[in-house]
């Protein structure tokens, strides 16, 4: 028996807002802490405006092995006792709540801003001077021969902006702090305010390399709130597009890791083959990143039989070309010795920080929404969960390579057996006063969107949790003990989104 039984909350199922418990702070705390201790995991934890002086904190938790979701809430004033001291995986969520809602989680061990913006979901009007943050209090190491290295926000390559502050002793990293928020565009507020046609374009632009993932999560949240049922054909096309997106990015990442260790052949070949996957998405959707494809009620573009055949042939060719290059790279002793033991994230750190996706699976924490909270196509067709155990750069590369092979096979198989039917159905207006949670296993990991409607069926709160939100902390703890010169490679092996984090 779980605490959240009877709530009936599942991935992509909507429940009445009134069913979400409102507990006093002590009960809320007890619910969340005991659930996490008994194997639940925080999916989303956010604040929303409630009345003129109070904020409602909403926690959405998942129990992966049973495919269950739970939710609870509490109402607070301008401060409350932080939960982080008891549950470390909440540390970043509570920093976000403090920033978005101007509510102070008292006793939080390190209450720094997340994105450095004025509160945009606060109950009270912005106090004068809000938005001017005090200088970011970086932790510093002092001592003989220690020094500090600052990198960013404008980087040496073509990379999104972020600021990294290393504390180092010689070449060895003692600690790193990652200051983000440069890409903050106000995505959640925009999604809450604009018409649906424009909202889906914004959802596609949450993270430009995860168009299918985020548009899929957005549309599924909308569909759950509208009680709209997609046809099996639409689900299949979405599933195919999601795996093509995974292929493009995983292949590109292997190439980028090869590039960072100056193993040029693999960098060049993978770089080109990444483009082949983007071109497959362009064949279907007219855009290399799949923009325009996923829409509320289904998909915009069909895959007719001759296109399916052509795509399948191109994928067969790609499969033939991929294996020799991957073997060339991953069987090479000098590549292995460069990747092995670098940037290690332990399974314990992974659980403590709530890491998701490839980074979690590379330290034998088999989290995968497609498997744990199956939806759409993945309820009928399964992709085995790929794991490795070492938690280093090599393990994260291996997990990607395993997933590439499985996704190629999967897409070829699905193209051969597309269900008949319409590709899109009418998606009605949203039901009033409901809550829906929509999760997708994007190529980086779990994407979670939570939508709450008001009594007129408008979006009252729209929360986006990109896998990068969880995983930036993982990169920070994997780095100490490594050389500064290995930072690019470690960073690439996580390959987190700045835009997805900054929203």
């Amino acid at each position: 028996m779980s605490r959240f039984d009877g709530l009936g909350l599942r991935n992509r199922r909507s429940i009445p807002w009134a069913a979400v418990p409102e507990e006093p702070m002590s009960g809320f705390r007890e619910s969340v802490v005991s659930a996490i201790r008994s194997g639940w995991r925080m999916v989303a934890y956010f604040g929303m405006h409630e009345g003129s002086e109070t904020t409602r904190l909403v926690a959405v938790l998942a129990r992966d092995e049973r495919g269950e979701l739970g939710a609870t809430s509490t109402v607070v004033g301008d401060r409350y006792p932080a939960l982080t001291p008891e549950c470390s995986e909440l540390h970043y969520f509570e920093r976000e709540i403090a920033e978005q809602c101007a509510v102070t989680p008292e006793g939080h061990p390190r209450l720094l801003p997340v994105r450095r913006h004025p509160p945009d979901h606060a109950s009270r009007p912005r106090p004068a001077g809000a938005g001017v943050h005090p200088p970011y209090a970086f932790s510093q190491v002092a001592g003989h021969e220690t020094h500090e290295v600052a990198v960013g926000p404008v980087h040496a390559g073509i990379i999104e902006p972020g600021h990294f502050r290393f504390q180092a002793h010689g070449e060895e990293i003692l600690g790193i702090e990652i200051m983000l928020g440069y890409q903050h565009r106000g995505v959640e507020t925009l999604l809450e305010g604009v018409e649906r046609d424009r909202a889906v374009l914004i959802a596609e632009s949450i993270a430009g390399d995860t168009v299918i993932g985020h548009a899929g999560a957005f549309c599924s949240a909308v569909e759950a709130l509208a009680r709209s049922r997609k046809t099996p054909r639409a689900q299949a096309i979405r599933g195919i597009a999601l795996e093509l997106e995974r292929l493009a990015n995983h292949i590109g990442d292997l190439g980028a890791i090869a590039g960072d260790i100056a193993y040029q052949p693999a960098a060049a070949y993978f770089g080109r083959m990444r483009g082949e996957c983007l071109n497959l998405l362009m064949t279907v959707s007219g855009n290399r990143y799949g923009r325009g494809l996923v829409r509320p009620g289904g998909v915009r573009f069909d895959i007719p039989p001759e296109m399916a055949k052509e795509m399948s042939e191109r994928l067969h060719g790609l499969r033939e070309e991929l294996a020799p290059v991957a073997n060339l790279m991953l069987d090479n002793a000098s590549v292995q010795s460069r990747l092995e033991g670098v940037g290690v994230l332990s399974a314990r750190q992974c659980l403590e920080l709530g890491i998701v996706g490839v980074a979690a699976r590379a330290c034998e924490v088999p989290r995968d929404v497609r498997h744990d909270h199956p939806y759409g196509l993945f309820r009928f067709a399964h992709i085995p969960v790929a794991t490795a155990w070492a938690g280093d750069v090599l393990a994260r590369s291996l997990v990607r390579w395993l997933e590439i092979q499985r996704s190629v096979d999967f897409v070829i198989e699905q193209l051969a057996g597309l269900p008949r039917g319409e590709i899109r159905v009418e998606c009605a207006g949203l039901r009033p006063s409901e809550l829906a949670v929509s999760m997708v296993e994007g190529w980086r990991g779990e994407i979670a969107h939570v939508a709450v409607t008001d009594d007129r069926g408008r979006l009252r709160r729209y929360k986006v949790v990109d896998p990068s939100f969880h995983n930036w902390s993982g990169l920070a703890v994997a780095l100490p003990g490594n050389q500064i010169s290995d930072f690019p490679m470690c960073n690439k092996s996580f390959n987190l989104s700045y835009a997805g984090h900054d929203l």
Partner: protein
Amino acid sequence: MLRFLKARLRQRTRTSEFPRGTPEFPDRFRGRPVFEPSRCGDCAACRARMPSDLLQITPAGRPVLDLGACLFSPEEAEACSSGAIRFTTEHAMAAGAREGLRSTTGEFQLAAALERKARALFGRSLRLRSVVAGSCGGCEAELTALGNVVFDMARFGIQFVASPRHADGIVITGAVSTNMRDAVLRTYEATPEPRLVIAVGACAINGGPFRGSPEVGDGVAAELPVDLWVPGCPPHPLTLLDGLLRLLGRLPDPQARRAAAETTPNKR
């Protein structure tokens, strides 16, 4: 070594023939939009349905297509129920002036080559610095793709460098978020003159999907003088390459291109 050579042989040479020949795109590719005034019924129904500012109405009541605001979504074409707006598979779209992206017909004023002195400086060696300022990461992915073996911009002497001090110009992507504004201006200041500013993507041109958000500045126009505007969401790598080569005067003139297309079949 043998395995490496085998892989090398198998991979072959994949560099695109561009700018020779005519690049091929799939039928569904959404390139430059066109507007057919004869089909426009003046019903103004598109205004409510248009998810971007692609179609604007002048004070005189004439519809104007603004490529800079286009998000290249199927909905923008469908906003007109009589089909006056449609996407072509044409990739060339970059303009030298913001006005060049506006048109009442779909004929746009594409970028002209830099004047002779600037071309002598940059024409055969252009070093650029990328500044990302409130984007989704999509435009940067396509800028990165310019460096892969297919598009290989280095064969034209174009390269991204690690410091503004080494650069001839900066490429700005993103709507210029509040948190990046200062870094954009300081990177520009740090670039030695003469310098180019290239605005890439709908966000940098007018805010893109984030237009109107209090957290962004609706593009770079308010901050810096721009030499090249490259529309797209994100622009296809060939749209980018076409714009850069146009600016450098390195694009064969259309007639020579057509003649070349007849003699050299373009590889996919």
